[in-house]
């Protein structure tokens, strides 16, 4: 099996650089992406997270690669491989930036050594593990061929020989005033040890460290370069062999290995993101993604961005489920403010997008249709000049969403029409929901209007729960039941002594 790509085997990678979907800000997927790619910026991974796949087989392949990487041993091996490849590139960069030949040559050697190590270690570890994915199996076969090749064997032999020789080099420097002398090491004892010994009897406890933090040794100064030049004269044969090696092995990295490295970064980044949340006790699963499926099952899902934020405070979000039978297409979410409605809506959007990327998703069990796109309309924070302007803006944007949507799209709509009268808002809402039902797209619609929760059989009413004994306490649970905003309002009023009887008692008491 030849290795081409972990991500695009069986399909074609987009030829042009894609754009970030407009929904990413609303769904907070932009936050998720920046978390996933953090520390991996050099690989330009974000675009890989923007494009949903349209082929369930490609999705399944990616899921199998990810499943292989769930294995701690494989993940560690791939991660160690990626670290080595990064170091290799850094060393190659040094070889280009430094001016002195003795330095350039050595950086090439150091790059070659770390590359050899990267390939050998990854090969050994992939061969030692059971692999379930075609992608990693193909890579393993490729690496075995590579390591067995005579050119690789020659690289290893030459690199190790010269490295060993350089490790033996030891020289002495005398600095007096502005004069520097370089000569062979004559094997004098370590003076430090002598001093330490002389003062040892006073040492009753650990002491403060007075060592100054010196710049890294690899940052060579002009003086050190001059010294290195003289050292190469002390050991002319060794340095000649180093030069020959560097000339022969200029660019050592195999192109397929480099492709794998970038793609692996995506999986590692997402895996790291997951690990933190799994530690907080949150479930993830491999979703069943079926094109055209009309049934939706999300058990114990959550908003990935919120979960991340809460995890950093040692907390975990409340998980929520959504189950829609075939034919149920519109979920209208009502309930108290700050009760988790928007978070719930985001969760549904995120899960559909991530599932279409072939990644594990938040939730214990997820079985959904394959979304061609997730479209959103959230109320904008910025205030427009007039209310009319704001309503117009709302309508223009929702029109654009409806124009783009197909029956396979997922729509996440949040608090529309807050800028008009209640009766207008109800009328507009009904009209919009009617259009969506006609289209047949899956829709989560968050609203403060209970009236919109009553519709035909396609419409399902979900409500943000409060605690029975304390109506001011949100549970952040979204449950399926008829909208009843009024009952909540009455309870809250009672608690604040604002019922009819209480207000009568208090007034004039």
């Amino acid at each position, binding site marked *: 099996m030849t290795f081409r790509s972990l991500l695009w085997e069986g399909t074609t990678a987009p030829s042009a650089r894609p754009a970030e979907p407009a929904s990413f800000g609303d769904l907070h997927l932009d936050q998720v992406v920046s978390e996933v790619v953090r520390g991996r910026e050099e690989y330009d991974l974000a675009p890989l997270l923007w494009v949903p796949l349209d082929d369930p087989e490609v999705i399944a392949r990616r899921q199998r690669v990810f499943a292989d990487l769930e294995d701690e041993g494989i993940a560690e091996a791939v991660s160690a491989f990626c670290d080595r490849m990064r170091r290799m590139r850094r060393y190659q960069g040094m070889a280009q930036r430094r001016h002195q030949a003795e330095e350039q040559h050595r950086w090439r050697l150091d790059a070659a050594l770390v590359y050899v190590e990267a390939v050998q270690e990854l090969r050994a570890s992939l061969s030692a593990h059971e692999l379930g994915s075609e992608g990693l199996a193909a890579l393993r076969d490729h690496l075995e061929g590579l390591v067995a090749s005579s050119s690789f064997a020659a690289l290893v032999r030459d690199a190790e020989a010269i490295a060993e020789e350089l490790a033996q080099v030891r020289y002495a420097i005398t600095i007096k005033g502005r004069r520097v002398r370089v000569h062979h090491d004559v094997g004098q004892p370590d003076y430090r040890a002598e001093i330490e010994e002389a003062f040892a009897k006073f040492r009753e406890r650990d002491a403060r460290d007075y060592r100054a933090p010196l710049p890294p040794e690899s940052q060579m*100064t002009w003086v050190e370069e001059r010294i290195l030049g003289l050292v190469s004269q002390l050991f002319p044969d060794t340095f000649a062999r180093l030069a020959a090696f560097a000339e022969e092995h200029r660019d050592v990295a195999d192109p397929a290995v480099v492709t794998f490295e970038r793609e692996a970064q995506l999986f590692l980044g997402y895996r790291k993101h997951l690990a933190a949340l799994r530690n907080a006790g949150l479930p993830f699963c491999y979703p069943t993604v079926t094109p055209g499926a009309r049934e939706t099952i999300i058990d114990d899902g959550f908003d990935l961005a919120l979960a991340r934020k809460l995890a950093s405070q040692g907390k975990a979000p409340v998980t929520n489920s959504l189950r829609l039978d075939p034919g149920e297409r519109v979920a209208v979410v009502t309930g108290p403010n700050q009760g988790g409605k928007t978070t719930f809506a985001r969760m549904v959007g995120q899960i559909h997008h991530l599932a279409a990327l072939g990644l594990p998703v938040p939730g214990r069990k997820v079985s959904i249709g394959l979304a061609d796109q997730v479209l959103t309309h959230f109320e904008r924070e910025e205030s427009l000049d007039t209310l009319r302007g704001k309503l117009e803006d709302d309508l223009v944007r929702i029109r654009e969403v409806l124009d783009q949507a197909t029956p396979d799209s997922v729509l996440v709509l949040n608090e529309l029409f807050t800028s008009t009268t209640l009766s207008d808002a109800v009328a507009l809402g009904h009209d919009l929901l009617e259009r969506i039902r006609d289209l047949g797209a899956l829709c989560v619609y968050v609203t403060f209007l209970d009236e919109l929760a009553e519709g035909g059989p396609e419409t399902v009413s979900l409500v943000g729960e409060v605690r029975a004994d304390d109506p001011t306490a949100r549970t952040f649970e979204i449950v399926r039941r008829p909208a009843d905003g009024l009952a909540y309002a009455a309870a809250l009023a009672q608690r604040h002594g604002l019922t009819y009887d209480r207000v009568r008692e208090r007034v004039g008491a």
Partner: protein
Amino acid sequence: MRVLLLHPDRDVAVGDPLPERLEDLATDLSLDAVLDAMAADDDHVRRVARWVLLAGADDPAVVAHRQAVAADALADPDAFATMYRVATEALEGRRRLFFGRFGSSPETVLMQARRLLDLLVDALRRLRRVAESHRGLLSSAGMVRLCDSLAEELDDAYLDVLEGHLEELKLEEGVLLSAGLGRGNASRDHVLHRPPRRGWLARMLERESGGLSFVIPERDETAARSLAQLRERGLNDVANILAQSSDHILDFFEVLRDELAFYVGAQRLHRALAQREVAQCWPELTEDPDALAADDLVDAALALRVPEAVGNDVDARGRRLLMVTGANQGGKSTFLRSVGLAQVMAQAGLPVAATRLRASFAPRVLTHHTREEDAEMESGKLDEELRRLSALVDAAEPGDLVLCNESLSSTNEREGSEIARQVTTALLDAGVRVVYVTHLYELARGFVDEPERALLLRAQRGEGGQRPYRLVEGEPLPTSFGADTYRAVFGAELEAEADAGRR
């Protein structure tokens, strides 16, 4: 190098934070008067003495160790004073040389540490000479060991070696290092060697290296800095060791100064009490439980302030509770303080103000005194008082000595007595010794029937209301002579003396 004057096995970290409750102990025992006498304006002595007195000792063996050293201090004050001065001057050195802080570059650290060590090695030499000359006058295990170990560890040969290194590290002939090749062929694993000397080695190196040398151009400051950096790679570790060594020697002098300070203070206190003709003795601390016997026990704090403080004789005869009642201003609080202070001073290793004292060793001395703010009857006050009492109970362990002065007077007598009775009985049953001064008649009366574990003492009312400040054994009386005090203050009779037992 250890000092071991305050404890036979370890250096005592004078200044380590002490439990909060010991602040109360210091206040309740009027420790300041004792500390003033010990310090004689030396704040350091005061700080150390305060710490040692409050921290106490682990067991009677430690006390015996200190008593012996303190006896040496009384016999040869000059040895202690001189060594204390040498230590103090050595510690001044660091601040005098460079404001007490090391610089940040290895070259600076090396230079500073070298100069400081010059001074410290000299101080060590002086210290050893004092130890040698006074050795014959000293007999305590602590001082004998210290003097012997100074003589043995810091002989001239050794100190000369140290001075030799300090001389070499002036690096007058330059720096010699060796190195290997690291990543990018940068130098690594720098090792400093003994600096080259004028002589065969230097000549050999010069010959061997032939033309392999270069000179930094005169005005090239960048290159000069790079060269300095290379030197520092070689010197960093050695500078660190030197700076650490100077810290270690300063640590030694610090412990020495701290421990000597206590005995310097002990000698001053002894002299101050002797000048006031207060009898002093070496107390006997025993592991026997419930021992407290003293003759002519004086409150040392009071004796240092007023002339002719009256002493008390007391013999608990194996009883765990001393309950003291009686006349106001009848010397109850003074007695309580004399017991507490004697216990604390004894356990620090000091002589005590009595002609004889034999007492059980108490791991902790705990006090619970009424506070100004407790005096009024308010629920908040009782709450505060109970909170402190609860903290005391948290701290108490079997064998401890608890001193209560008018505890639980912030509520009415019945409630106060009942709470106090329950707390006191529980403490006694747990093996805690209690000395309780109280107006609470109900409380005191409750122990009349328990002569096997309670000794009842009463402040005496002398003729015509004059008080001799002496306690006698006796059952509590239902009133506390408030009328006397009232009369003394107001010059008039208190109307209703029938307000028995209440404040």
